[in-house]
């Protein structure tokens, strides 16, 4: 269902490697399964042609990789950025986290990525391969003879259903067409929870957060979490917590993490994508984004380089902390 093809991307990467524009290519390579895609750095044509992959499971946000992968290389690194990735790209530039000169960024269109759990819900377990015939996904299971045909829209990942933008906000070169910022319904779920009673909200989050196994996947995938030393790994931070010491620690973890990325989170949705327990962690971040939009004016992290996040800014007339609860008509 992606409009741009793997072949187009491979040829592009090969030509840039050949003419010396870049020396390395950050791309996707197949994992154990078709839906289990791994980011990889390629530095020669042969390996690119052999392992480079592009399909409906290439959801990983590459921006974060630029922080580590641009270090210690001579020459430039080619990176393919989906529209949502470009926001993280800008945000990381705002925070001076990588050297822009070392990157050659190509914006590529994205039609939305598939969620393997949704595929499994339709096709069952034991999936051996997933292919695309241009329209439908063809899912082959070890239990069936013929592949099951699935409509991509039925298995679209949550973050892609609520895609906020098909527009690239940063690139050196654009392949395919640029889209627009979309009028998404991404805050609807946050509003739904806000409308609950405090008890219902508590039960909702108790149910979700109780499943956390504190694997750190959310943090490790998050493009806003690029700290040299994470506070949770730092014995002097007072919240060091590498393994679950008691039940309580993990829940602090998610609040603190959400606060740390507040104003910097681009709402890329990686945290929820990678959560093995399917905790909707993005809702915590979206709550902050929604709240800041409503209280301090619309702000989209990463829309431009160098912007000031609402939490590093203020006006003399800001709402008092007590008043955020009473602004009924803002919510209306």
């Amino acid at each position, binding site marked *: 269902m992606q409009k741009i093809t793997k072949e187009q991307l491979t040829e592009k990467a090969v030509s840039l490697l050949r003419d010396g524009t870049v020396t390395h290519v950050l791309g996707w390579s197949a994992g154990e399964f078709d839906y289990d895609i791994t980011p990889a750095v390629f530095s020669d044509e042969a390996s690119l042609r052999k392992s480079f992959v592009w399909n409906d499971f290439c959801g990983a946000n590459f921006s974060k990789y630029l922080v580590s992968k641009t270090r*210690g290389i001579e020459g430039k690194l080619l990176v393919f950025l989906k529209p949502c990735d470009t926001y993280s790209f800008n945000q990381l530039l705002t*925070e*001076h986290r990588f050297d822009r000169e070392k990157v050659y960024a190509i914006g590529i269109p994205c039609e939305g990525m598939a969620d393997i759990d949704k595929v499994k819900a339709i096709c069952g377990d034991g999936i051996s391969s997933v292919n695309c015939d241009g329209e439908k996904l063809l899912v082959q299971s070890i239990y069936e003879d013929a592949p099951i045909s699935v409509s991509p829209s039925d298995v679209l990942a949550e973050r892609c259903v609520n895609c906020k933008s098909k527009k690239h906000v940063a690139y050196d070169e654009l392949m395919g067409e640029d889209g627009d910022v979309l009028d998404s319904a991404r805050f609807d779920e946050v509003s739904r929870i806000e409308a609950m009673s405090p008890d219902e909200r508590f039960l909702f989050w108790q149910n979700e957060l109780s499943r956390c196994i504190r694997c750190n996947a959310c943090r490790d995938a998050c493009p806003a979490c690029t700290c*040299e030393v994470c506070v949770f790994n*730092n014995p*002097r931070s007072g919240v060091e917590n590498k393994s679950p010491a008691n039940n309580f620690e993990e829940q602090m973890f998610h609040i603190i993490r959400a606060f740390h990325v507040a104003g910097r989170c681009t709402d890329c949705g990686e945290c929820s994508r990678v959560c093995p327990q399917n905790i909707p962690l993005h809702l915590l971040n979206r709550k902050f984004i929604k709240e800041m939009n409503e209280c301090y004016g619309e702000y989209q992290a990463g829309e431009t380089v160098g912007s000031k*996040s609402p939490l590093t800014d203020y006006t003399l007339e800001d709402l008092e902390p007590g008043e955020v609860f009473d602004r009924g008509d803002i919510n209306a």
Partner: protein
Amino acid sequence: MQRIGVFVCWCGSNIAGTVDVAAVADALKNEPGVVFSTDYQYMCSQAGQDLIVSSVKEYSLTGLVICSCSPRMHEVTFRKTAAAAGLNPYMVEIANIREQCSWVHKEMPIGTEKAIILGKAAVAKVNLNAPLTPGESPVTKRALVIGGGIAGIQTALDIADAGFPVDIVEKKPTIGGKMAQLDKTFPTLDCAACILTPKMVDVAQHENVRIFSYSEVTDVKGFIGNFDVTIKKNARYVNEDICTGCGDCVTKCPQKKVPNEFNLGMDNRSAIYIPFAQAVPKVATIDPAHCTMLKTGKCGVCSKVCKAKAIDYTQKDEYITEKYGAIVVATGFDPISMDKFDEFAYSQSPDVITSLEFERLTNAAGPTAGKLLRPSDGEHPQKIVFVQCVGSRCDSCSEKGKEYCSKICCMYTAKHAMLTRDKYPDTEVYVFYIDVRTPGKNFDEFYRRAVEEYGVHYIKGMVGKVTPEGKKLMVRASDLLDGKQLNIDADLVVLAAAIEPDKSARSLATMLTASMDTNDFFTEAHPKLRPVESPTAGVFLSGTCQGPKDIPETVSQAGAAAAKVIGLLAKDKLKGNPCVASSDELMCNGCSSCEKVCPYGAITYEDKEFRMPDRTTRIRRVASVNPAVCQGCGCCTVACPSGAMDLRGFMNEQIMAEVDAICK
């Protein structure tokens, strides 16, 4: 591990009345790190301090916890005690068991329990205290005064008299400011020029003072004691050093139709000009907007007549950088524009003027040589209406005026009215007022004299409309006390326009990182107790840049600012507050979050080389805090996502240890 001594003070019965001090000392004995704990009647007394000093020696203490009154009371005392005992002064923490315990609780068990907890928190903190040494920075013994009005002149003179070099930067071609434009001064009616011009000469001739006229500050870097300032000297196309101020060029200049800003456009000057006879420096300046030579290359009269050969059409703006230890802002005020108040017909009739214009009309050096004549026809006005509070005391939502009282208008209007009646007893003078505000020495007496001796008609009410009709100005106004609407056929209407800070102040404040209020007045470090200091260390305030003021107030504030500057420059080195932020380079991401929230601009970034575990090196952008600029608020520590930024004396670990101790 620390060796902590705990000292519980009775404060007579102030603490011991509600807190079982012995029990507190006893309970704290068992806290980690505590090796000695005792109580005493008055810990702050000499005997109490001796007890502390001897205990430090006896038990080899490394940290002290004093359970006593508020640290706002005696923290400094006990830090000195610690220093006397050979400890670092910052190894002391105070548990406030008086103001925040014994004085607010009544029952002994409750007070005792809370005192123990507060003591535990202090012990927990001291366990993590580290010796702190205030940073030292040298002081450049030179001051910069921005603005050459009476405020700037007085400040500069006072500093210079104390023996320190001072530079004055004035954007106009001459110093003197607004006071140079005034005629007489209230309430003594001495002539402004007679008291100001000698000071202008003094400052110009002072060996410690340099004047950069026709110049502006374009960049400020650095911090208290160590400012680097860039000053732009605008090209005046006249060599200041050789111009004798003879004025031949001014008389011969063929372009004579330039509105004269010194007389507020009520007469004209030539394109090359000396603002007024007593100007300092008394040198000519060419106005490039009107000079035919500079515009078309054809003229050169001034160059031909100048015997000193001072004219230089090729002169360029010049940039000077200089180091200063202190900066005084004395940028002054301007009357607001009357554009939005055309119900008074300011734009419609030349006979509607502002009070500053009135000063020029009555000044012997003004456009009418001091005769009060109508600008429209040069006739003597028979009936004058003064309108007070034009643009002052407006609603906060007003787009036209200012919310504040401009403070000086009541008095100068009384002065104008009185002087008019004195010189021209046949003139009828009306003053429309909302309130007459005269708090000041001999002020109300002055106003009463205007009414009682000089027969000025003071009318409580406001003018609502001025209608120019032929030669007259029809003034419609209310007389609230008589319950009448008055219609006066005036010859001259004088508007007491509100004053506002000079427009250049806003950009200057940004350069200085000095804060301003919503009206663009500079804010003081404390409205009562530190009125001449800005919250930014090393930046001082003089005159109306801080708020509306009359001349006596301005001069006294100028002297106060000078005293503060002298106090600063007298020091060879500055000791900073050691409780400042510092960033752990190994953890810093270089993300700039801290810089964005720092109110002092204390944080900069540098690219640093780091050795990696694999023996490679990596260059990373990291934050670095200038301890001389940082004031220690700690805002950056919360903005920092990685926790690299921490605040000495109030470290994350320390505060969390206090939290833990309280919540245990």
